């Protein structure tokens, strides 16, 4: 589904990703682990199409298509979803209005029929309950005054509403206490399926106790320096990044 080959990405002229290669099949959950500054967020932003992230060489192929040729909104319509590390607060746009606008924009782009406000509300309510996203939160301005945990739960609610094919979770665990983490992980696990691929990006092994990946890649200094099964997370936790990064260098 996703094939990244020898990807080099520069931000403000500085190379951050230096030859990253990775491929994910439908139905799989992969994790990217890495220390601060390894290029994790750059990878997530370049996949979502954020301006200012320049691909200097290499390629990203998504379902046979050059992902880099697509605008962020086109990627979303084609099933790419990035759960952001820092969801943005947007005063003046209510959460429910935003969800309806986004859902219908994606449907419109895919040539599907738009859904009315009532149907969106019903669908959102059903999914919100499991994530403990309250009715009151849906009426508030998007992310405004939400706690860290509420913001992350809303990201997962969006993921469940938009039903993406490729979900990228950028440090979804950061800033969460253990109860919030479990809630978010349950939400993510409920969305695992044979049609869907997930890329879970995290600094800590803790999240991977709850979202168990099929494969782990260790990112350091812009490259994948180690790969393995779920047990790699525990090795990292026990021995630290320096051990593995150092060995690879």
């Amino acid at each position, binding site marked *: 589904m996703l094939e990244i080959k020898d990807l080099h990405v520069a931000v403000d002229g500085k190379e951050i990703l230096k030859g990253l290669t990775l491929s994910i099949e439908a139905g799989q959950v992969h994790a990217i682990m890495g220390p601060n500054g390894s290029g994790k967020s750059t990878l997530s932003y370049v996949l979502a199409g954020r301006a200012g992230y320049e691909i200097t060489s290499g390629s990203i192929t998504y379902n046979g298509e050059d992902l880099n040729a697509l*605008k*962020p909104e086109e990627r*979303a319509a084609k099933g790419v979803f990035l759960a952001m590390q820092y969801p*943005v607060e*947007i005063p*003046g*746009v209510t959460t429910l209005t*935003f969800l309806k*606008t986004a859902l219908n*924009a994606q449907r419109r782009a895919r040539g599907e029929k738009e859904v009315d406000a009532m149907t969106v509300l019903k669908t959102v309510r059903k999914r919100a309950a499991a994530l403990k996203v309250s009715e009151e939160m849906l009426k508030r301005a998007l992310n405004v005054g939400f706690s860290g945990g509420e913001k992350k739960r809303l990201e997962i609610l969006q993921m469940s509403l938009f039903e993406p094919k490729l979900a990228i979770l950028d440090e979804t665990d950061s800033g969460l206490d253990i109860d919030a983490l479990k809630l978010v992980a349950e939400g993510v696990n409920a969305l695992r399926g044979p049609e869907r691929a997930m890329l879970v990006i995290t600094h800590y092994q803790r999240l991977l106790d709850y979202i168990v990946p099929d494969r782990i890649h260790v990112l350091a200094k812009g490259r994948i320096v180690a790969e393995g099964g779920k047990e790699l997370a525990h090795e990292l936790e026990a021995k630290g990044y320096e051990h593995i990064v150092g060995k690879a260098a």
Partner: protein
Amino acid sequence: MNANAHWLDERRAEAANRFAALGVPHRRIEDWKYSDLKTAIGSANDEAAASWAVGALPDGVELFDLANTAAAPEWVRAHLGTLPQNALASASFAHARAGFALRVARNKAAGPLHVEFAKSGSIRVLVVLEEGASLTLCETQKTDGYSNLGLEFVVGVNAQLTHIRMAPHAAGAVQVEEYAIQIARDAVYRAHLFNAGAKLGRAEFQIALAGENSGAHLSGVSVLGGMAHADVSTHIIHAVGHTTSTQLFKHIAGGKSRAVYQGRITVEQGADKSDSRQTAKALLMGERAEADLKPELEIFADDVKCAHGAAVGDLDANSLFYLRARGIPEAEARNMLVRAFLEEAVDEIADESIRATVWQAVEDALPGAMAP
């Protein structure tokens, strides 16, 4: 003029002298730094009579045509031309032969009343609300050429005046309007402005909170594109204590347009327990657009609350990316963010149908402001 009009001659002569002494404002005068009137009007003058039309009069409202000053009733004689006048208000008072006066009788709740201005030249308007009266005045500014409109609002004890001012886009027009407003004890004046800009457009408010527990609440949005210019300059004087003023202005400036807000607050000596808040924000949609926001405080009392804030910025790149990453196309995402930016100011309007009218005007003006 016959002898009956004598009461006005003296006031007009004084105004003419004031204008002669002050002259047409230009950008070297601090208050006109961002709006160069002299250059904009060139050789045009305001001596013609602009036109006005007043819609159906609600019950309890009396209308007097100022073309017939000799027959002016006592309430017109008592108030017309009595509030403070700057250079342009002096000019409109000295030159205007057209205009009207409105009075809302004691304890009458009237409105909405629609007023429209057109053509070029001067007009004089007097609005008097007697004790306990209320009125919603919906003004539409459609003048062309150079127009200079001088309005006086006398808001009596415990009266309520809500003033909606719609100024749709007028590319070639130079539109100047001065409002002199006096607010008595327990009375409230509310103004909601919409500007799409003109060649030069300026709405100038000189508001005196003259009685305890009076309030002035101003809000507005400007949505400007192309070469449009819109200037809102306010001066609110807290003349006595226990008075309140709030101002909230949001401006969108695209193309090569210019949005100006100057807000001066004066709290006079002894006007303790005055409370004043003003916020002005502008979003620049074009690299050559300009916004000038200048809040100013002059406080001569000790026990007052005054807060002000001004900010000029671009559309937030993080917000834009977030919306696009959720599938919302760029143009739609930008529109969403712009509407969200304006919403707080539009929401100040209590009446739902007026709010809808303002939103429609915003929708009409937005494509021009968003165009590169």
